[in-house]
């Protein structure tokens, strides 16, 4: 197991695509970086996506090399399965408390063979697949996980001991305990990512009740070849869907659920999924019901045109409510605005285009302010968008507000540069060199 040192130049909190970018940018400049990730693997949301818009590149094919680069960078130390519990100012820098959770596996000895997972006798819903697939009590988070080291979920463990018995390297360690560590850092970059609006936010959509009403990230997993089904079928009975609807702004731009902002990515991910769905299921009927299509990024308008040309139906319409047929088909009551009529339409599946909400709140850990929308406040939104209300603490990626992957990467780079400037201004690195020399 790696040793957490007493001092680093920068602490990056969150190992998604933005966190990895910030860590690599700082590492390339020669700064010593500690990147902490609370999940068993780095990669964040992006590594679970099927493809990215507008290029339709395989998401994990782009993300996984970046994960490997981050893990192997000589100036970046990656600590997964580790929580940040407190940050306090200390001198020109910060003192951070970390909690390394026990994996019950010796990370150094494990070769990631997966033998323990195969031997484990219990299967439970897998969070990475939004409950649609299964995992064991001891499991490697996903096929592209970095590190390829399992974690043992003691809440679902049968304590049979089989995982230790089959391990060829004797690396299952039931006596491992949580470890606390205190580190001093010169600057902090918060790249804590996103969640999506809860599926029960709009009661009239029954997103938490109807099996064939799914969230967009679950649909990413359904579409992924390494997803829970390995093919596109619907969750209620395994039927190949023939007719699918997307409901746009199902979790954003909606005062009734307290989320008034536009999440900026929903139009594009819905169009992307709709296009791909027609690639996966021949002649599939797919309709997006929307208020308006926002295709603002580079190549996005062209992708929207491509979706239309490929047969995706884009309808200006407001879905008032969702009900369920006896065979679990989904019935939408829709006001088709351009036709001026209210209709009921039946679909095999419906995707609620949920919005983005913060993946983590700082309350009780670091005294950084949040804006009204819950994302980190940016007091210099125009001139230094990555600055937070604490000098020396910077935010990047979706932690600072909803954005797509290219914007998250750009902003993470900005946060890394701001952190590097902060270190320079405070002569932090000279002091680190002295500590290292001693």
């Amino acid at each position, binding site marked *: 197991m790696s040793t957490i040192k007493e001092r680093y130049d920068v602490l990056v909190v969150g190992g998604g695509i933005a966190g990895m970018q910030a860590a690599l940018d700082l590492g390339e400049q020669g700064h010593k970086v500690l990147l902490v990730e609370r999940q068993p693997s780095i990669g964040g949301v992006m590594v679970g996506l099927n493809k990215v818009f507008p290029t339709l590149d395989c998401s994990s094919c782009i993300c996984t090399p970046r994960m490997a680069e981050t893990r192997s960078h000589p100036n970046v130390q990656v600590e997964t399965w580790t929580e940040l519990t407190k940050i306090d100012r200390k001198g020109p820098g910060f003192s951070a408390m970390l909690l390394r959770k026990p994996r*019950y596996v010796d990370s150094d000895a494990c070769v990631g063979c997966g033998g323990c997972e*195969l031997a484990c*006798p*219990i*299967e*439970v*819903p897998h969070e990475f697949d939004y409950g*649609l*697939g*299964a995992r064991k009590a001891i499991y490697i988070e996903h096929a592209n996980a970095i590190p390829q080291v399992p974690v043992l979920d*003691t*809440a*679902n*463990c*049968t*304590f*049979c*001991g089989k995982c*230790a018995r089959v391990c060829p390297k004797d690396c299952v*360690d*039931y*006596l491992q305990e949580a470890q606390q560590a205190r580190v001093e850092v010169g600057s902090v970059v918060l790249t804590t990512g996103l969640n999506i609006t809860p599926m029960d936010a709009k009661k009239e959509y029954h997103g938490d009740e109807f*099996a064939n009403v799914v969230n967009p990230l679950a649909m990413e997993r359904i579409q992924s070849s390494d997803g*829970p*089904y*390995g*093919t596109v*079928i619907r*969750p*209620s*009975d*395994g*039927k*190949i869907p*023939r007719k699918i609807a997307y409901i746009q702004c199902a979790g954003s731009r909606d005062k009734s659920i307290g989320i008034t902002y536009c999440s900026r990515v929903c139009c594009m991910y819905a169009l992307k999924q709709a296009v791909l769905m027609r690639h996966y299921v021949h002649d599939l009927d797919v309709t997006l019901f929307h208020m308006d299509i926002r295709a603002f990024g580079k190549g996005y308008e062209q992708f929207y045109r491509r979706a239309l040309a490929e047969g995706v139906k884009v309808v200006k319409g407001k879905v008032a409510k969702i009900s369920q047929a006896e065979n*679990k088909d989904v019935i939408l009551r829709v006001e088709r605005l351009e036709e001026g009529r209210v209709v009921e339409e039946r679909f095999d599946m419906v995707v609620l285009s949920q919005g983005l909400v913060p993946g983590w709140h700082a309350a009780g850990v670091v005294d950084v302010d949040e804006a009204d929308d819950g994302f980190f406040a940016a007091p210099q939104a125009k001139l230094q968008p990555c600055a937070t209300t604490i000098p020396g603490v910077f935010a990047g990626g979706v932690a600072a507000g909803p954005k797509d992957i290219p914007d998250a990467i750009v902003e993470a780079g900005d946060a890394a540069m701001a952190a590097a400037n902060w270190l320079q201004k405070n002569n932090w690195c000279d002091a680190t060199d002295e500590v290292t020399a001693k």
Partner: protein
Amino acid sequence: MSDNKPKKPIMVLRERCGGMSDELKAYQKELLALRKQLAATLEAGPKTVPEIAQECGLEADKALWHIMAMKRYGAVAQRGQKGDYYLYGLEG
């Protein structure tokens, strides 16, 4: 002296975690029974999820979850298609 024998590490962990909850015990019992039932159903040949669900008296979404879990860990494989449904059969 058997009293002084050190506890096996798995027993130490079990004690630290308070053992298996009653809920998990019931879940595992049901899981094992269901897997036997599903395997027996598929002995006769590949079936769709609704067919499997009907034969086993399960909700179709639950049958799908278990079949997909069995597929993931190598007990079941996809075997062709029947209408809008894939067929699943025992592996090997």
